[in-house]
């Protein structure tokens, strides 16, 4: 479903991503992990089409996401960025309705989808509130509801658990598991406990490089411990190289 080939990205000459390649199968939930500044958001931004790669290619369903048929990819994909920007002057349901209309949903289907996503993402209790007055957790839920409006085939989520209480995080986990039935999910998170449960494999980034693809459900030490060991090894390696 998703193929990232040798992607590279620089910010003002500094390498943010270096030769990153990965493949995510249809129906898979792939978690991207890494310490701060590892390049997770940059990778997700490039996949979502928000950022342009300096080199390399992103293919969604075999179509180049930055090519002439990019609109085809945009129709199949939804993206939840980390800070979850919303139209602060609109009420939550107005914001979602506006986004749904722009995504091309017809009136009847939009109404049904709005009801469904507001219910499943826990947005219902504050649907009449102004988006500008929401907490971070509530904003994240609205962003997720927006992403799920069109039932996308590829869902790209940057820190979807940011600001969520354990109960809500659990709810979103169940929701994402359901999403993987009709689509693919690529998400970045710092929550190792949830990462281990979400998908069978997780991709580890360190200072812009893909350092490992781990099996999250393997026997042995928990994922968090294995990742800590990996970061220590990477840090030692980087110091040795320096």
């Amino acid at each position, binding site marked *: 479903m998703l193929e990232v080939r040798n992607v590279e990205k620089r910010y003002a000459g500094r390498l943010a991503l270096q030769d990153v390649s990965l493949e995510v199968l249809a129906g898979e939930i792939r978690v991207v992990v890494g310490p701060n500044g590892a390049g997770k958001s940059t990778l997700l931004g490039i996949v979502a089409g928000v950022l342009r790669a300096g080199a390399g290619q992103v293919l969604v369903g075999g179509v180049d996401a930055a090519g002439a048929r990019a609109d085809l990819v*945009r129709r199949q994909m939804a993206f939840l960025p980390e*800070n979850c*920007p919303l139209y602060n002057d609109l009420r939550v349901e107005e914001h979602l309705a506006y986004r749904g209309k*722009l995504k091309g949903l017809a009136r009847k289907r939009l109404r049904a989808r709005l009801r469904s996503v507001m219910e499943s993402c826990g947005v219902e209790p504050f649907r009449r509130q102004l988006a500008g007055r929401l907490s971070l957790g509530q904003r994240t839920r609205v962003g997720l509801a927006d992403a799920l409006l069109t039932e996308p085939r590829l869902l790209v989520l940057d820190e979807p658990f940011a600001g969520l209480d354990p109960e809500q995080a659990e709810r979103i986990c169940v929701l994402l598991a359901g999403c993987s039935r009709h689509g693919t999910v690529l998400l970045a998170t710092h929550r190792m406990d949830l990462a281990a449960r979400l998908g069978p494999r997780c991709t580890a980034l360190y200072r812009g490089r893909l350092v490992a693809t781990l099996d999250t459900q393997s026997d042995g030490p928990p994922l968090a411990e294995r990742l800590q060991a990996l970061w220590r090894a990477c840090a030692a390696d980087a110091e040795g190289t320096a």
Partner: protein
Amino acid sequence: MNRTTRIVWAREAFAMSCSPAVYTALTAFFALCAGLFFAALQIGEGTFWSLPALWILSVALPLPLLAILVTMPLFAGERAAGTLQQLMILPVAVGRVIVGKFLAAYGTVLLGILGAVVPWLFLSRGLAGKLPPLAALAAALVMLGLHGLSWTALGVLCSVLARRPWAAAIGTLLLGGGAILAWAALSRLFLGGHLQAPAFPLVTELLDAAAGRLALHSLVLHLSLSSWCLFVSRHLLETRR
């Protein structure tokens, strides 16, 4: 109107109808127009300036201010808030988004121009029988509409270019001012030897309109400038997508 254009236009029109900044801009515009007009009436009394000429100049002068205040948040504001990025990853045609936003802004500018007609209602009592012909007023309104069109399109272009709304406002002022000066310089350069070239073609076309004369070249110029601004805006957003 295309569906995307209509959706974006409705959203922007709603945002403007709820925005205190837009109401402040309209109030400031009306106050400036009225103040300038009545000051011009005092100063211009007994001179060769006609009543419509004084009126059109007193509306045309603060018009850029209204257009700038209305257009500056269209794209720059969305970019600063992060919502433009979210808009650009949707499967929508950029050109239609631009036209939707432009129409909403231009609607507000037109509302301002129509509101500036109010002083005539007061004057009509005092000047019974001496009011200028309706054709002169209509021509003045059309010319102001064309000026509003150009300023709004310039504002949209600068809003696409800028990262912050205030930068878009400064950009529009500089670009618009530069365009006016360039127009004056070109008129002198190319027409100076043959015709009696006007010192400021912008003022001349306004005064002509106030006398009931609408030049075709003014219409072509403003429509071309506006189309060019919208075309460049679309190109810029498309390449940054």
